[in-house]
């Protein structure tokens, strides 16, 4: 199995967990997503965030190694790219990580910074969720179930 393929799907899975646990904490209107269990949502969100940052660092290092080796082979499964959806994902990921770190570190020391970054973090979640739906729509051929060759042969 290709490394970039594994990274893509691991990243998608972690992002899905982050989106669902994050939405549950977005406000009283959203709490039903995890039945108002904010404590669990918080733990899940922070643990998934650590994995998310690690995966992002691995992907960036992988890309740097490719540049240093002058590897120009196309990697269609890589999460980040120089243009299009890959670039959008890269920018939103960096903003997610920076704002997330500010929220985590300054939650009770700098309320103004936390409130501002929390607002960006939340609004960006809605944008990213919409963009993922668009991405799935564009790649919907991946959802086609494999045909049964035996049945076809009959």
């Amino acid at each position, binding site marked *: 199995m290709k490394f970039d393929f594994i990274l893509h*799907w691991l990243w*998608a899975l972690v992002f*899905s967990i982050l*989106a669902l646990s994050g939405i549950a904490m977005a406000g*009283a*209107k959203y709490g039903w997503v995890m039945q108002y269990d904010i*404590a669990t949502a918080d733990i899940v969100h922070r643990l998934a965030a650590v994995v998310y940052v690690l995966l992002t660092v691995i992907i960036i290092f992988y890309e740097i190694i490719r*540049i240093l080796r002058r590897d120009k082979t196309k990697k269609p499964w890589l999460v980040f790219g120089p243009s299009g959806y890959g670039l959008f994902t890269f920018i939103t990921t960096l903003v997610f990580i920076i704002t997330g770190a500010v929220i985590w570190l300054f939650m009770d020391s700098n309320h103004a910074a936390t409130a501002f970054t929390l607002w960006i973090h939340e609004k960006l979640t809605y944008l990213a969720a*919409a963009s993922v739906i668009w991405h799935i729509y564009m790649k919907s051929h991946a959802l086609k179930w494999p045909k049964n060759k035996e049945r076809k042969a009959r």
Partner: protein
Amino acid sequence: MWMQKKWFKLFVWYVTISFFFAFGAILISMFRFGPTEQEAMSFMMGMMKAMETSLMGLSMQVKEDANIQRLVYESVQFAFPLLAISIAGGVYVRCRRKV
């Protein structure tokens, strides 16, 4: 091809459905009436519980510890030069590439 294997297709469907659920949950929550008083109370109770039993509460306790605060402060002192060196390295590598 892995994408053609049935167990992997199931995984892809699972991830896709989770995103549709997330997007649906956002739309439903955003455009519905409320929150009701009961929902607001449940949310506040959840937040209070999180302060005690989750990493949110733990991080608050950590911040009260002077030793850990000093450690964090010193780590940050290391982090910024490392970040600057990394960015400079990245720019150097990018500029050296001819294509």
